[in-house]
């Protein structure tokens, strides 16, 4: 049974997305992408993904909007009016229909017996629950480790998986942020370096470039 608030949030999200698509004022559209992220964070909370909601609210509504606004201040504030073309609608319609056809085989939303909840996820939850709750009772006794089952023993299972079970993954993610920042610096920081060069050299550089 769908909660009314889910329907309301989805309607808000769809409206915001359509308005973003139609707006020609890019500043307003940038603010609306922030609102879009905030609304989706609300939906993530209903779907029990509190960590994802937290991240989406902080990233989408905070930092990403600031970055887009910074870019807009350097480029155009408005986009040109353009005629509505029919081809994109056809492409999008066909893609959407194919995707919806693909969902027909999926388990219903919230189905406890769905395939993704078995295997590894069930194991993670089982191990962590046992480890954390047994830790509670006898703090001195090391939890679970004698039995050969490794456990983290933290209440937040998402953090346990993120930082310990899938530590490699998170290491890669940190490396991605690092690489992307290096890329941004390489793309945008040339001016500052030129400023440091002494005046005659700089003139030379400007004429040669």
């Amino acid at each position, binding site marked *: 049974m769908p909660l009314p608030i889910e329907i309301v949030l989805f309607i808000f999200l769809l409206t915001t997305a359509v308005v973003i698509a139609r707006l020609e004022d*890019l500043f307003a559209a940038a603010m609306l992408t922030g609102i879009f992220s905030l609304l989706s964070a609300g939906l993530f909370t209903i779907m029990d993904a509190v960590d*994802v909601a937290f991240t989406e609210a902080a990233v*989408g509504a905070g930092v990403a909007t600031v970055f887009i606004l910074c870019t807009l201040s350097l480029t155009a504030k408005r986009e040109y009016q353009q005629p509505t073309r029919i081809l994109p609608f056809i492409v999008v319609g066909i893609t959407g229909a194919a995707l919806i056809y693909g969902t027909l085989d999926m388990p219903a939303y919230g189905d406890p017996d769905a395939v993704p909840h078995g295997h590894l996820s069930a194991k993670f939850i089982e191990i962590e629950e046992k480890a954390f709750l047994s830790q509670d009772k006898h703090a001195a006794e090391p939890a679970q480790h004698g039995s050969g089952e490794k456990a983290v023993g933290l209440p937040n299972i998402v953090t346990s998986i993120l930082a310990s079970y899938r530590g490699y993954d998170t290491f890669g993610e940190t490396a991605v942020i690092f690489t*992307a920042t290096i890329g941004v610096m390489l793309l945008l920081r040339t001016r500052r370096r030129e400023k440091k060069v002494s005046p005659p050299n700089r003139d030379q550089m400007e004429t040669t470039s």
Partner: protein
Amino acid sequence: MQWLGLWHYWAVIILMMIGLYIVIARDNLVKKVMGLSIFQVSVIMFYVSTGKVEGGTAPIIPEGGHDLVYSNPLPHVLMLTAIVVGISTTALALALIVRIQEAYGTVEDDELNAIDGAAL
């Protein structure tokens, strides 16, 4: 009506398609990035919705909480990583757009094509 349980996925797919429409139909590059971020949020939402368990709670174990049903934490972890990669790629795309603006004086796709066509 077994399909009624699937309406979450459909709503997410409609959102996704609006994002895709912005990416392919709008000429402004910053607008394309916005469409891309809508698309990204929709994909994340799709993954997270597959992890929801009816009657479950967020995967955080309370003190002394026995016999609770938790939603699947694995999609949450994967999507956390996806959001991080998303903001990184967005920042990189915006940096590229700034450089394109400086080199061409415009960020409209059709004008860029016209300039490139004239240069050839």
